[in-house]
């Protein structure tokens, strides 16, 4: 008897069992993303998404010169300073001694750690070929279960996601544009922490939070629900505050940001080349260098009180790869005219096709729990029209929970693309009701500093690329078909050869990235 005999015999088992196995799975078990350390090296073209949100507080700082730096207010405070040339150190206690050495080796600027975030420990995904895999797997799963307990916290964010997506993505014209709802949410939540009074209230209102405490709890849960760094799947929301060494800051607030938002705080000489480089290096480290070009343009000036940076880095492969030899060259009817591009082709035998009054949609699974959704406006309907369409926006954030859907064979034809987008969110945030933070006369950031400060700029950059193996996406933000018709019975060609929308959802089904592709 050989294995092939068993394979043949399995083909003849009780037909009732075979039929039952083809029915939908009876129960939904815990959703735990899969990770494999052994695959890490093969991830060069996996799905990756990065967003950097940089928020700068401006102030009239002329005259204060070199004021005394923040004094650690109690033993145990985190305070380490590093100077690449004069090696001045003022260390009390640090949770991770030497981390700045790793972050900024050779930089001549002083960068001092005021608060260091500690990410949750996560057991690495074990090597499946090693002895003791079971036990290691159980340890890994226990850690994943802890993270899974946070899921669902972002359920109340649909309103913010819908309004902000329509605001920030509309009006792209003929350009590509992308936005990371989850990353901007995290930056705004931290903005609420450092603001006070009605400045804070406007941010709470936009995020639909009843109180700062409720927002803090929600943001903490959202961060954890989306966090994974076990060597096989990476999904990390990272944050840091870069503070002017001449300004007095509230250490308690920095600690709250470190403990609840996993945001580290650094202090140095604003506007100095070394400090800018340290900041850029941190950004490049968090984003895998995907946004290097844009990151190089992020700098501070001596009048900057603080720059808040948040990044979202997500990377995964398609569950089923596109075969490179099936990629064809064809015409994409772009917003600015026809262009020739490479189309990846794949058939999903058990795909799901969705439709609305003015669009059709389908999705492709990513390893782990991620998914990429493609929304194609009907012929004659523009992307902007969909962004203003309640039904279409509802679909974008529904994560497949949609009445008009059908399982059938879907023949995907998807353009390969690598898009970058840079947005100034200032005007959009103001139109969404966050006005006081930008108003020099009204802005209240007393939760962070007694120095007069206001929100100067909010820049947001995104990069998303997909190929046969997966999607690569990066982003930063700097605050300095078928319409209503039923689909065919068995099979449909889903051809993305004109401007379309996409959404990348993560472990908690929340939208990590949403974008418009006008020119692949």
């Amino acid at each position, binding site marked *: *008897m*050989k*294995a*092939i*005999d*068993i*394979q*043949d*015999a*399995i*083909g*003849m*088992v*009780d*037909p*009732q*069992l*075979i*039929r*039952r*196995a*083809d029915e*939908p*799975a*009876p*129960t*939904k*078990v*815990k*959703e*735990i*993303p*899969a*990770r*494999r350390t052994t695959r890490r090296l093969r991830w060069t073209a996996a799905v990756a998404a990065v967003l950097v949100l940089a928020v700068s507080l401006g102030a009239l700082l002329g005259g204060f010169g070199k004021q005394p730096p923040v004094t650690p207010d109690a033993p145990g405070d985190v305070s380490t300073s590093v100077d690449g040339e004069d090696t001045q150190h003022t260390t009390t206690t640090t949770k991770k001694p030497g981390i700045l050495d790793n972050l900024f080796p050779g930089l001549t600027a002083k960068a001092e750690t005021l608060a260091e975030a500690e990410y949750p420990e996560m057991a690495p*995904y074990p090597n*499946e070929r090693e002895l003791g895999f*079971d036990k290691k*797997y159980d340890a*890994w*799963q226990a850690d*994943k279960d802890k993270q899974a307990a946070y899921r669902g916290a972002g359920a109340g964010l649909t309103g913010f996601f819908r309004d902000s997506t329509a605001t920030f993505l509309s009006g792209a014209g003929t350009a590509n544009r992308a936005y990371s709802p989850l990353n901007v949410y995290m930056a705004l939540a931290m903005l609420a922490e450092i603001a006070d009074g009605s400045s804070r209230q406007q941010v709470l209102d936009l995020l639909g939070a009843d109180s700062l405490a409720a927002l803090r709890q929600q943001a903490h849960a959202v961060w954890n629900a989306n966090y994974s760094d076990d060597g096989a799947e990476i999904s990390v929301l990272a944050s840091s505050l870069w503070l002017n060494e001449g300004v007095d800051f509230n250490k308690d607030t920095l600690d709250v940001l470190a403990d609840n938002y996993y945001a580290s705080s650094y202090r140095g000489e604003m506007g100095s080349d070394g400090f800018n480089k340290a900041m850029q290096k941190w950004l490049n480290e968090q984003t895998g260098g995907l946004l290097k070009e844009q990151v190089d343009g992020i700098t501070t000036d001596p009048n900057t009180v603080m720059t808040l940076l948040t990044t979202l880095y997500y990377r995964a492969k398609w*569950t*089923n790869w596109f075969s490179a030899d099936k990629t064809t060259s064809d015409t994409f009817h772009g917003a600015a005219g026809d262009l020739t591009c490479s189309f990846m082709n794949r*058939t999903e*035998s*058990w795909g799901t096709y969705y439709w609305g009054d003015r669009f059709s949609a389908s999705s492709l*699974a990513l*390893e782990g729990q991620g998914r990429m959704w493609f929304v194609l406006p009907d012929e004659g309907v523009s992307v902007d029209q969909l962004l203003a369409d309640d039904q279409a926006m509802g679909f974008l954030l529904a994560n497949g929970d949609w009445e008009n859907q059908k399982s*059938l*064979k879907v023949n995907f034809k998807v353009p390969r693309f690598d898009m970058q987008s840079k947005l100034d969110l200032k005007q959009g945030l103001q139109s969404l009701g966050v006005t006081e933070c930008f108003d020099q006369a009204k802005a209240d950031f007393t939760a962070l500093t007694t120095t007069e400060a206001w929100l100067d700029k909010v820049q947001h950059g995104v990069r998303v690329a997909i190929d046969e193996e997966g999607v690569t996406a990066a982003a930063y933000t700097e605050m300095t078909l078928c319409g209503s018709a039923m689909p065919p*019975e*068995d*099979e449909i060609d889903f051809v993305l050869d004109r401007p379309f929308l996409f959404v990348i959802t993560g472990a908690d089904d929340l939208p990590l990235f949403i974008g418009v592709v006008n020119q692949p």
Partner: protein
Amino acid sequence: MEDNRIVELYHQRDEAALQATREKYGHYLYAIAYGILQDAGGAEECVNDTYLCAWQQMPPQQPRVLSAFLGTVTRRLALDRYRQQHAEKRGGGVAAVSLAELEECVPTGATVYDGVECRELAAAISAFLHTLPREECDVFLRRYWYMDSISAIAQRNHCSQGRIRILLMRTRQKLCKHLQQEGMME
């Protein structure tokens, strides 16, 4: 159309049976064949051959579960085609990988009996599958009957790929033990 009505049409030698089969199970059969072959043209041919086999076998056959009957034919045709295509070298794809996994059920060093009939083996495996919890049984059949990929099964069951791998590994170990107990090998 109800399955018993379709079977009735076959027995009446009414060609409407073929059309009804195509409409109801064409997509299902194609998915089985494509899962094994990863080739659209080959899968289409297997499905068409399945209709021919069904026409030839009914009557006298009176399948209890029409979908499983048809699926079994498609699976066999697709596997035959696959093995023919990969006779000289070890092939890729889910069929080859699942076969390699099943080799764990016939451990190195075990004395196996070559004379075991396929039907006897199938009966032993059926009996074993009936002892399993539903999820474990379904996952095993999705992998080794339908030849689904691990990722597809994980998606279907809303869980991680690692969990599916563990489940399958444990099921294979239990099957190996069961076959030994049944005297298929020792």
